[in-house]
């Protein structure tokens, strides 16, 4: 069985190299690019991406950035296996676990594959981003996307001129659902009657479709759109750039202002890079801890950053006030549809005035 798995892994490696046209190979030969931060090191850490892959300018690039930084700081050997299809998850994870001490499966979509493979390598470590697996060698890192998105919803509802907001989702996996629900809750806190258009591409990899979904929302009155869609969401910026003045993109996960410097209203930071970095650090220092890490505003795992220069101070103060209210527990942000259903907005008194902002 182990022999078979190894054979599969080998076959898959060969297929992967052919299929990606030696993309990884090329980077290795050239000795540049993010694929192999090769060092003389005992610790090998491997990122296994979801199908959106490296270059999504979003979730996977963020995880890779954390690993590249860790390679620099701790001298570990950081490698990347990209998954071309969902069928690659098990074979890529197997290969990664065989070759090194730490494996980083990136994304909720790998949940079944992790559950299948993790028990076969009880002495290897896994830092699983965005989903929970309870095997004893897995550290599951999940984020309170709803908390960051809530602030995004507050900001958007304050900035919108049309009273219509949009969400363009990839696939409605739980992290995306948390984004969606948190954003709606935040927007409704400011304006209970706000209209929110929600479209799904059913793909994290189709920027053309992302562009058209976003354009349709703009056409129907939305002036701020939140893409939560990996590579698909890159197309949202094209839609905004095409429209020009009067529309905004609220970016998810990471700063994407290079895609449209004048189009990005702000970005909801998701600390995937930091989580990967810390996972690498733990393995490098022999302090790996299995279990669940749930990171929100309090842990600085989520935040709202990169505000466009046109956002005024009064608006920023209101956002800050809500942030503090979430951190100190005054506001509990809903994390799923059921909680959103039951959500009663807490409107902060005088949130608009600077003195309402806690001095800290």
């Amino acid at each position: 069985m182990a022999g078979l798995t190894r054979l599969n892994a080998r076959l898959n490696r060969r297929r992967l190299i052919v299929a990606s046209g030696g993309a990884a190979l090329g980077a290795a030969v050239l000795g540049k690019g993010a694929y192999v931060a090769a060092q003389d090191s005992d610790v090998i850490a491997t990122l296994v991406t979801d199908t959106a892959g490296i270059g999504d300018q979003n979730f996977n690039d963020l995880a890779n950035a954390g690993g590249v930084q860790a390679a620099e700081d701790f001298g570990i050997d950081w490698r990347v296996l990209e998954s071309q299809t969902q069928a690659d998850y098990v074979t890529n994870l197997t290969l990664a676990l065989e070759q090194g001490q730490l494996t980083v499966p990136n994304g909720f979509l790998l949940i079944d594959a992790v559950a299948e493979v993790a028990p076969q390598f009880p002495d290897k470590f896994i830092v699983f981003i965005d989903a929970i697996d309870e095997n004893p060698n897995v550290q599951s890192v999940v984020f309170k996307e709803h908390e960051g998105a809530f602030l995004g919803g507050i900001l958007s509802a304050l900035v919108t001129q049309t009273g219509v907001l949009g969400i363009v989702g990839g696939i409605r996996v739980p992290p995306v659902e948390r984004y969606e629900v948190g954003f709606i809750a935040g927007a409704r806190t400011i304006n209970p009657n706000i209209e929110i258009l929600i479209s799904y591409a059913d793909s994290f990899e189709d920027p053309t479709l992302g562009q058209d979904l976003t354009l349709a929302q703009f056409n129907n009155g939305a002036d701020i759109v939140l893409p939560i869609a990996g590579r698909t969401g890159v197309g949202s910026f094209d839609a905004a750039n095409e429209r020009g003045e009067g529309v905004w993109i609220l970016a998810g996960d990471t700063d994407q202002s290079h895609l449209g410097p004048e189009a990005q209203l702000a970005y909801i930071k998701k600390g995937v890079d930091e989580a990967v970095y810390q996972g690498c650090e733990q393995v490098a220092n022999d302090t790996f801890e299995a279990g669940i890490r749930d990171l929100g505003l309090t842990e600085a795992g989520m935040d709202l950053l990169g505000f466009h220069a046109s956002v005024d101070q009064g608006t920023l103060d209101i956002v800050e006030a809500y942030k503090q209210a979430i951190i100190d527990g005054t506001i509990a942000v809903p994390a799923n549809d059921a909680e959103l259903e039951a959500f009663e907005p807490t409107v902060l008194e005088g949130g608009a005035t600077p003195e309402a902002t806690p001095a800290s």
Partner: protein
Amino acid sequence: MSDFFTVALLTATLRMATPLVFAAMGGLLSERSGVINIALEGMMLTGAFFAVAGTHWTGSSWLGAIIGVGAASVAGCIHAFWCITLRGNQIVAGTAINLMAAGLTAFLIQIIWGRAGGTDSVSQLPDVFGGVNILIIAAIVLVPLVHFYLFRTKQGLHTMASGESPQAAESVGIDVTRNRYLAVVASGALAGCGGVFLSIGNLSYFTIDMTAGRGFIALAAVIFGGWTPFGAAAAALLFGSAQAVQIQAQATSGFPVSPDLLVALPYLLTLIAVTGLIRNAPAPAGLGKHANAH
């Protein structure tokens, strides 16, 4: 709902259908000449990538478009060489083109831009006539042209003869090899146009696998359309409009249909089209068959 069927919906339909129409016309020419072309996806991807690379190199999106179409034609040449000269299995050759295009483009992004996954932005093909992309107009003009070519010109009829019965065609002196080469290279060029539209017509950059299966949908359109230009174009439009309706419906608040169902709409329509429309439209009889050995 009153403003549901708008100009925006029509525009979205054309944007969605245009790459499919190009690739479908390409697939049609190839299949009519007797060469199975499941390589449309790879040819589109090649065209999309080299349009961006060409624009990057020359600074002109027009030259970029020409380079993109040229590169896709080269992919067509390779397919033709494998299928016609080497008499290889046409499905295997097509699969190889698709894998090669996916790998080569991902690899070249790293060589040229030094990073993975996607290229930098380059200038777009300019719009003409008030915001309509020139390739949309080209796609509309293309369909009757292909019809005329296939059914009204000697060259076109020879192409179809090569696809129906290569042996018979050879016996009356038609150069099957030449006709098939022409058709397959043209199919590469046309599929390449579809790719160019995706990368520098709609967007301004290339990302890996950005065709997202559109080449296969175009091939399906050829088959639904009964291997006729107008049929294939109608099938491509059907798919494009289903996609556009889906997009518009999702962006309409309070639309009384589940989003999951809406996303499935194009595929549902495709299924209905297959079961309803394809009564007995036959494939070219010589499809996938080699001509006699010379």
